[in-house]
């Protein structure tokens, strides 16, 4: 499976980013470049999991407000800044689910559905597609999170680990198990 290049961070990019972070720590006004760089990514991550577009923009703003007010706490320990933002986004999303009664939503593309059916060695028929969508709706939150990150957003195991604050290997194992559970539900 190909990894989405949007989420990939080279070492050089991370180092360059550290300069921007240091500047933002000194002066909040200089957080601007980081905001412009990551706004779309974070919005897509949020909107991917929400039905309401306006609420998604609100949550995204809230993510950056939290990030800027806590930027003095950010220390580079091998985890890129984007992963730190995703963690905040994850936390803000759950808060929105609780406080604003936002509906947990999963956005999938047809292509991803068919890829998954192929992974299960089944026919890519319309009925199977319907069945898989129904199965996805039954998945538990933790499993769904992994399936989304890995199979719908095509993130690397390393990045999944960084966002979920688990090791790369654990992310790999848990993603596999989540897929196995979906397969089990699908085949039964």
């Amino acid at each position: 499976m190909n990894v989405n290049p949007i989420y990939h961070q080279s070492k050089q990019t991370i180092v360059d980013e550290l300069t921007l972070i240091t500047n933002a720590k000194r002066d909040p006004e200089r957080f601007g470049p980081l905001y412009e760089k990551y706004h779309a990514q974070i919005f897509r991550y949020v909107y991917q999991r929400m039905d309401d577009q306006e609420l998604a923009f609100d949550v995204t703003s809230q993510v950056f407000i939290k990030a800027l007010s806590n930027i003095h706490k950010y220390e580079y320990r091998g985890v890129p800044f984007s992963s730190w933002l995703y963690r905040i986004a994850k936390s803000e999303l759950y808060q929105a689910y609780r406080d604003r009664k936002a509906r947990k939503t999963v956005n999938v593309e047809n292509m991803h559905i068919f890829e998954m059916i192929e992974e299960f060695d089944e026919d890519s028929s319309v009925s199977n597609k319907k069945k898989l969508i129904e199965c996805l709706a039954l998945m538990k939150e933790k499993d769904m999170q992994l399936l989304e990150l890995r199979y719908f957003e095509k993130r690397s195991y390393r990045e999944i680990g960084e966002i979920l604050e688990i090791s790369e290997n654990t992310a790999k194992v848990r993603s596999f198990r989540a897929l196995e559970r979906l397969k089990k539900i699908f085949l039964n």
Partner: protein
Amino acid sequence: MKNHKILVDRKPLSETYIQSRQDFGNVLKGVKQLKPPLWKTAWFYGPVGMATVALTISASSIHANGIPIEQKAETNQLTIVEKEQPIEVLNVSEVPIPKAEEDLMKTELKATEVEITETIAVEDETENDIIYPKDQIIEEKTTLKKAFPNIHNIYTGDITFSELFSEDGITCGTKTITSFSIQYFNGKEDVKEQVEGNQIPGEISKMIERFNNGVMIYITEIKAIDENKKLLSLPSLNYIPRY
């Protein structure tokens, strides 16, 4: 039970549209609003809070006493003057004593400790703004003096030969002195002799008069019997006899 709403192929938002919704100014505004007010920060409750507490306590204590600060200071000064008088009596124990006598002294002092403590308690009360009349203080001083042995009401230091050899001898309030040791210079060396009664014998008196003019003599191991026939050890005496 369905845990999620599944949307398939939702129309994606364009990059331009998402960018158009960027509002960094709103983020900065949000950060400012997120900051707690000054009175909710640790900085406020640190120095400012402590200063307020200190001021409140001092203000309430002044109010409770009903005395302005300046008057209070004056009262304290007066108290110190009053305190100095009874302490003079305690100087008896500060006079240098021969090393061999020190341990005995410690034991002997215990007998007078009670009375000394009482005097100090009276002083403490004066500190709490109770000013005793001077005659009452003198009475306390007299009570304290009664606890110490003396010759002709002299407790230490210079004494004339006539006072030293007076008929009253060593006295100590209502206690009866039964024996004592006296250390003096006999023209060759320091000698120490045990004496029964409360008077310095004639032979020793002659030696002292002859060889100890301006030389300190030590009267130690003073034993006495109180009203209850209880044997007591009293503090030592040191005199410099002169003509």
